[in-house]
């Protein structure tokens, strides 16, 4: 049974327009914070905290996981000045960057452009070029170990074509070891970044190419006069990815194949960090090197972004 009292609406507070919007904004803020909170907690716990720890440990003398730590403030950074190996590592990393970026990114772009033309068989080629990225690092190292051995495939090939005078112990020769390591990164990098470029280039309308072809443009012109300017931002991203890989990730091949040797021929910053942390057990100093790499990384990323954005505007 319905009563009259139940039918009468309760008195409601009438909000002013400003109050309503203020309350709505507050509600949205709370909702936003609640939605962001898990990601924020994740970021603080697993990203920011380890990063802060890196800075913290870099101020310590810590000579092994089993040993106590001692606060030495900036002494690890002062050590940079007298560390000849660090100078060698910076030089080798510089060489790696100077060869490894121009040796990969433009060719990857060209490969990506070629694939984006979707000629017959491009799917198979895309898979083949991407396959080095699907091989585990250890397996890749084994492949190149077999290739570079004194009696390996490379020297055998040189013998077969009558160039045995070019035979080298590639990974153990001071003049070829770093080049041999860089070659691995170039070999595997072109295919990987080529497929990334292909994905990005697929967004360019085919009409643009068709119009250019009507004007008599060839593939080379279309690639560099149409695709490249449109891909400039993405080009910058790929350069940053390759730069970051060489700065730290490329150490994996050095660890597996040369251990920084012979002598210091393949000592790079990334490997030196590993060496100081896990082999020499100088944990505080290794984190000081990590801080150096961190700031160099940020500085160069900003530089690359600035250059590519200027070129885009230009």
């Amino acid at each position, binding site marked *: 049974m319905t009563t009259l009292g139940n039918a009468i609406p309760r008195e409601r507070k009438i909000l002013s327009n400003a109050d309503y919007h203020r309350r709505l904004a507050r509600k949205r803020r709370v909702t936003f914070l609640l939605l962001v909170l898990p990601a924020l907690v994740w970021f603080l716990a697993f990203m920011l905290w380890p990063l802060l720890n890196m800075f913290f440990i870099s101020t310590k003398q810590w*000579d*092994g*996981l*089993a*040993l*106590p730590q001692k606060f030495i403030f900036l002494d690890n950074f002062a050590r940079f000045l007298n*560390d*000849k*190996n660090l100078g060698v590592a910076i030089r080798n990393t510089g060489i790696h960057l100077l060869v490894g970026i121009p040796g990969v990114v433009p060719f990857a772009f060209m490969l990506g452009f070629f694939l984006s033309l979707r000629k017959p068989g491009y799917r198979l080629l895309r898979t083949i070029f991407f396959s080095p990225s699907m091989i585990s690092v250890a397996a890749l190292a084994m492949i190149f170990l077999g290739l*570079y*051995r*004194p*009696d390996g495939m490379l020297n055998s090939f040189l013998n077969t074509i009558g160039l045995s005078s070019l035979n080298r*112990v*590639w*990974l*153990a*020769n*001071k003049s070829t070891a770093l080049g041999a390591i860089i070659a691995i990164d170039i070999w595997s990098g072109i295919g990987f970044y080529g497929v990334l470029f292909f994905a990005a280039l697929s967004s360019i309308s085919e009409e643009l190419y068709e119009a250019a072809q009507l004007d008599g443009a060839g593939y080379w012109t279309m690639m560099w006069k149409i695709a490249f300017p449109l891909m400039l931002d993405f080009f910058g991203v790929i350069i940053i990815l390759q730069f970051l890989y060489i700065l730290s990730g490329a150490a994996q091949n050095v660890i597996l194949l040369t*251990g*920084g*040797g*012979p*002598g*210091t*021929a393949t000592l790079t910053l990334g490997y030196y960090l590993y*060496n100081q942390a*896990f*082999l*020499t*057990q*100088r944990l505080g100093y290794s984190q000081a090197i990590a801080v150096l790499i961190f700031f160099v990384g940020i500085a160069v990323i900003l530089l690359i972004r600035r250059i590519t954005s200027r070129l885009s505007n230009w």
Partner: protein
Amino acid sequence: MLVLLVVASMVLSACASAKATPTATNPPPTPVPTPTTAQPVTLTIWHNWGPDDAKGAPLQSIFKDFMAANPGIIIKDEVYVDADIPLKVETASAAKQEPDLVFVQRVGSPLNWTEGGIALPVNDLIKQWGFEGKFTDVALENFTLADGKIQAFPLEGYTWPIWYNTKVLKAAGVEIPMTTDQLIDAATKVRAAGYQPVIASGADGMGQYLFTLIVQSAMSDEDAAKALGDGDWTIPSAVKGVQLFTQLRDAKVFVDGIEGIDFASGNTRFFEGKTMMSHFGAWSFGEAPKELLPDIQLGGFPLPAGSPHKFPVIYSAFTAKGIWITPNGAAKMEAVKKFIQFIYQPQMIARFVEQAGMTPPLKDVPVDATKLNPLFSQSLTMQVEVAKTPDFFLPPKVQPNFATVSQEAFTPGTTAEKILADLTALYEANK
């Protein structure tokens, strides 16, 4: 200077007899199993003696017999690569998840384990558990810190001799070289006969041991300690030793491309019978092909003119393996005690000696001489001197990077001056 006319003096006193019996001073025999209603205790053990290692089978048989004799204790063993074990233990220890016992060599970071609380010193346990006077002095010394703490129970010793292939030498018409001049002559003739001379792992960490052995062949023990330990590579005998190394290298005493050869491929090439000499430790005794055994003669590295040594040099030490007790193990000390007393029974250690040619850490081990690996038996009668194993002297921070210098030293064209400068720089950088 320790003359190692017979390594047996520190290993097997009972080896001469066909089959000796345990002495009265041995630890108590295997206890008779007793029924128990208590919860079983699990002992977790990390080691690297897997099925591919000659010591794997005897170790598993000991585990099996121990569990049969002690129904209340379960052994849970995990096999890892030897070089990976220290870091695994250290990270596990940080989470208090380390194994109860660790079988690992006393090289590198384990040297810090006692100070860092990752492993307990065993001085008192040796006394309390009835092992006083049982271990050889050198085995205990090799596990003792400067402050007198014994870091672990020594388990595996080794000799690290030079292996000569007499068939190759005979084909070249030469005898086993006793001097470096004879070595150069032999290498030339061996090459002419279609074989390769000395193989070693120039590309990895094992090559540094041959490098330092050759360098030490020109040095006294005192000078070797100064150079290897203190980094004083300016002393005349150290300079002479490095010059000797480059002289041998440039005389093509080593196989072609030695700077690119790793330990595994070096092993393979020697065992294929294609090379005159190699430098393998006792751990390879069980890996030598049977058909090659009659041709292998063990000895030391030839000496240069004016060497302070009387006999060719080899390495020998007991640091290859120790049993380390962790804090988790200490919490199960009764079970650990039973296991340690079980595995260190002379008849148990004898299994490793007979089946794997392991140099035992105990003074009295009853072995059946007929069961011994022929190379192990041969190693007991070598007329050699023991040089300083670099592991004892290289500062912990120098040790991991020493191989990069030795690898460069194996590379043709690297001068003695460059090697000496690199060695000095290595010690300077790691002070």
